[in-house]
């Protein structure tokens, strides 16, 4: 595993080496991932893709610093990750990730101030800059409970980007949205990436989303999650035929164990 990573590449931004993760339920110790390796370069749109139960969200939490691997290590810019920090901003799936007692603008500015990046007017200006980027200027002084699900996720993305983290961690941020909104959000995310070329680690269970958003896709198998493949995705704006072929290939790889006789073109 991970042998296909060429030695000539520069030092990766994020390096995950042989990471095994456990989590506890009430009466079991569950292995979420087993000896997973991958590394992310600057400006990657790196996707963790797999069926539910492959430990992709757990892996993201470990990169976020919320849990420690029992084996292996995760390094960000060569430094071992031991705790959560503002250099790895998370965007969660849940709509309740915004602080309900703060307006949109305050939510973004509060992140900047609390983490000690900026304060006062500078924080407010940077917050407004990124709120503008996600087209929420008019809702800047609204409280989160008055926003739609899509708008809340936009605020969370604006907050994540305003912190200008080394890497943005996104845990199925669009999974709870309706199909139309989800598509628009994916397009917007790609447009934002074109502008600022931020690095993002994106977890999803949707093959279509992975192919659309990512430039590199890590395929994980379920129970426990192990690396099945690490592949390049279709470039942004690729031909639909190319995209469809890639989706079919990934689909076949993910489900090869179960449905080998399933023949679709």
């Amino acid at each position, binding site marked *: 595993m991970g042998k296909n990573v060429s030695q000539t590449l520069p030092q990766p931004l994020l390096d995950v080496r042989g990471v095994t993760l456990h989590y506890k339920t009430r009466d079991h110790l569950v292995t979420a991932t087993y000896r997973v390796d991958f590394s992310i370069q600057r400006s990657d749109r790196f996707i963790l893709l797999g069926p539910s139960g492959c430990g992709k969200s757990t892996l993201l939490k470990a990169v*976020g610093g*919320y849990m420690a691997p029992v084996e292996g290590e995760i390094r960000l810019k060569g430094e071992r990750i031991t*705790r*959560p*920090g*503002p250099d*790895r*901003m*998370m965007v*969660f799936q*849940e709509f*309740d*990730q915004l*602080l*309900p*007692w703060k307006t949109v603008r305050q939510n973004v500015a*509060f*992140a900047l101030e*609390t*983490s*000690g990046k900026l304060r006062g007017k500078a924080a407010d200006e940077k917050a407004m800059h990124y709120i503008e980027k996600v087209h929420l200027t008019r809702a800047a002084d609204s*409280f*989160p*409970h*008055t926003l739609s699900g899509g708008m809340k996720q936009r605020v969370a993305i604006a907050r994540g980007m305003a912190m200008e983290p080394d890497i943005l961690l996104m845990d199925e941020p669009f999974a709870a949205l309706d199909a139309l909104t989800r598509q628009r959000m994916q397009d917007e995310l790609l447009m934002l990436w074109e502008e600022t070329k931020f690095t993002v680690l994106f977890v999803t269970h949707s093959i279509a989303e992975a192919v659309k958003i990512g430039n590199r896709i890590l395929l994980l198998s379920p129970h426990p999650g192990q690396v099945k493949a690490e592949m390049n995705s279709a470039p942004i704006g690729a031909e639909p035929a190319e995209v469809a072929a890639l989706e079919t290939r990934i689909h076949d790889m993910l489900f090869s164990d179960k449905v080998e006789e399933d023949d679709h073109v």
Partner: protein
Amino acid sequence: MSDAALRPEVYRDTKASQDFGVVEKELTLFEKLFNQAWLRKCVLLVLIAVVWEVYGRHLDNPLLVPTFSDTVTALVAAIKSGVLIDRAWTSVKVLMIGFSVGVFLAAVLTILAITTQLGTDFLETVTAMFSPLPAIALLPLALIWFGLGIGSLIFVMVHSVLWPLALNTHAGFRAVSPTLRMVGRNYGLSGLGLVLKILIPAAFPSILAGLKIGWAFAWRTLIAAELVFGVASGKGGLGWYIFESKNQLDIPEVFAGLLTIIMIGLLVENVIFRTIENKTVRRWGMQT
């Protein structure tokens, strides 16, 4: 089944709303007035006052039930002479001291409880032990420990504020969503910073509910305790005023004292706590 499939399809052109105007009908004056909650309640209050007055006159025994008008006269006289205000202020002052001490102790206890496992166990054990204990039952003991004075009053009030508030706050902290906690830690917050900047605001609806219960308990306890001994540094509070008036058979004054207790209770509940609610949890959409 085939019949269902044979139904014709329907296509229609819809009109723009300006073609037919918005359809609405104005409510009658009575309906509009009836929709005002405060007006309905005021009418009810007037009704109660009338029933009281009629019953009082019918009974014609001011030692048992004075009429509403006699009570109001006594109330106005007591307010004018400054006695009632003075007594009420004495009670409220003691209440504020006891309430603040209770809130402070509850804060210490719950912060210990959410930061350490032993703190949780401690809080759960002591609240389970002490919260069923009526504060008044502790009064005899308090009198022995602190003597006849503010000390005893504060002791029983702290007892009545502390446990419900601590219990509510702790439950509120535990109900804060894991996502919000993770967001806070993502900002680099931990320990006391996380508690102050994330957990307390996130649990504010529960904390506010605890404060309301604590206030109601404390107010009742204080009046009851004052009725039992009342004299604090030479001046009694509202409870003592009622007790004294009863001893002198000034029953309208007793009723005036009771009315004052009700009014202060309503004022705190409907003005102070309602304002806090409107400015915080309702505005944030955390409570409807």
